[in-house]
């Protein structure tokens, strides 16, 4: 009886581990393949790799063109992060805290863009920019990213707003705070974890966005757009090299962001 139970438990554990390993392989193997491809000395990709080298990484890092593209990607992502967090914070407060006519409609309308097919949204925005005579550039791309990312960040921050008792703001006000002091002393610190995740979301979603950038960045290029262009014509192992770098950059940002969040929580009184 006891041995059969133990055997059953062992089998369950084995299945859990097997499944976890399977999922991890499916998710991370392609990224690993990309990384391997970038270390291939030969210009064309094929397994098994005969000679490893870091030549393509060196070339990628040295390329002026890629430097410009990375700068554009970072610029767009930073602009999107700052603007979307500001818009989303107040949007989330309006949406989750205050009751006003049309609130429910607003809640639905603001979520909707998340589900638009992005190529269609990109095309629609491009047509819109053309119609009003705006030259597409990194700025229009940032605008397009905002259309899609603000709703996501609003949702992320709204969860935090729902999570705290409105009486806290009332209590601060009752204890003599001005509206601004209430926001600074209570609302902002309590929303901070949500704002912080919202910032990471905004940056990473913009950083990796391809369809919107393709349509709306005009002559400017971002990392995903450049990767696509080079895949269509002129492949070199710089494509997987830059792709791997972009992925690593995102991973570092995510881990760093998580660590900052963890340290902030630790700093609270014991």
């Amino acid at each position, binding site marked *: 009886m006891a041995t059969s139970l133990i055997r059953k438990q062992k089998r369950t554990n084995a299945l859990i581990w097997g499944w976890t390993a399977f999922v991890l392989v499916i998710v991370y193997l392609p990224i690993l393949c990309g990384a391997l491809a970038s270390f291939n000395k030969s210009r064309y990709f094929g397994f098994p790799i005969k000679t490893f080298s870091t030549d393509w990484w060196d070339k990628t890092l040295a390329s002026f063109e890629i430097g410009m593209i990375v700068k554009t990607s970072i610029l767009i992502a930073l602009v999107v992060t700052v603007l979307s967090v500001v818009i989303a914070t107040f949007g989330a407060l309006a949406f989750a805290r205050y009751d006003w006519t049309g609130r429910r409609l607003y809640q639905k309308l603001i979520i909707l863009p998340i589900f638009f097919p992005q190529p269609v949204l990109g095309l629609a925005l491009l047509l819109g920019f053309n119609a009003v005579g705006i030259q597409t550039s990194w700025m229009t791309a940032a605008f397009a990213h905002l259309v899609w990312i603000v709703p996501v960040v609003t949702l992320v921050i709204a969860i935090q707003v729902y999570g*705290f*008792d409105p*009486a*806290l703001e*009332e*209590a*601060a*006000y*009752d*204890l*003599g*705070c*001005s509206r601004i*002091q209430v926001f600074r*002393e*209570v609302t902002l*610190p*309590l929303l901070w974890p949500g704002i912080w995740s919202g910032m990471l979301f905004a940056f990473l979603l913009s950083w990796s966005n391809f369809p919107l950038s393709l349509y709306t960045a005009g002559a400017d290029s971002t990392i995903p757009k450049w990767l696509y262009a080079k895949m269509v014509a002129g492949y070199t192992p710089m494509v997987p090299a830059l792709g791997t770098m972009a992925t690593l950059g995102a991973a570092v940002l995510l881990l760093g962001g998580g660590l900052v969040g963890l340290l902030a929580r630790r700093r*609270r*009184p*014991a």
Partner: protein
Amino acid sequence: MLQTMTAPAAEAQPRPILQLVGVRKTFGRFAAVESIDLDVREGEFLTIVGPSGSGKTTLLRMLAGMDTPSEGYITLRGELINDMPANRRPTCLVFQSLALFPHKSVGENITFPLKVKGVSAAARKARALELMKVVRLPPDYFDKNVMKCSGGERQRVALARAFAYDPQVLFFDEPLSALDYKLKKALEKELKDLHRETGKTFIYITHSLEEAMVMSDRIGVMRAGRLVQVGTPEEIYGAPVDRFVSEFVGEVNTIKVKRDGEEWRGVDVDGRFTLRPPADGAALGEAFVVVRPEYMRFLKEGDTADNRLTGTVYNEYSLGSRIQYQIRVGEKVMLVELSRARALPPGSDPVVTIGWDAADAFTLAG
């Protein structure tokens, strides 16, 4: 025993600290609070009780400055404060949820109102430690995470924070409702002690009359947006103005009676009754005799009582130190409550005679 308490008329009433005149609050067409007049005395512990939805929270929010009356006046020491926002009122509300700032330590919570006022860090800490002593929190809690405090400790932090604001009036929105019974009982007594020690005016709202009885100097009973009765706990219990109040403040036996010449005859039970005249002295054709179960007693051969009924015991409940009997009298069920020491002996005859004196009952208009 149950005589109407008459306040000594000669005693000079202190000037009311808070005065409400015709205060009304409507939300759309719904009136949450209907025309309330109330004088709150300096330094008193006033509790507003009422069932949920009676408007007591709305009333409190208007007093605290979180809602504005639709009509009427609220004055604090003679100054009209209808539109004075909460952050400028010298009053403080202890919320039902306590609303302690989870991202701040115990000390930071308590010193918060001082920080807002611009008091120096050293002075803030000194004051916080004083207040922690008043509310019986150990000084090493100053740096403790407020979310790691127990329910009772959090109550104390919330109180200390409110005292740090140095309000002229403190409001309480059922802050004890989430605690377990024993802790609640202990904190009720502590709150009453704190009230006496600090001499501040406390206005407390609750749906629990028991809580109100323990702590208050005066109790106001609310129903459907109106203050039905305001008085000392003894007045509310002993001389309720109507059936709602009489039933809200505890279990009662109510007998409908009709005037029959000089006598009163029972409508739903057989018998003739001697009544104490109703408080308003109106000549009534119909009335309700209301007797609390603890003023009923079993009558033995030869015992005298102004009123008596015969019935059958069909149930008994233990209430801890007391026992409650349910006695069927005709179609009605009457309640008799006794201390355990005076319980009916086991195996005694279920047919009993119960009785009460007119002075122990009260009469309400039909």
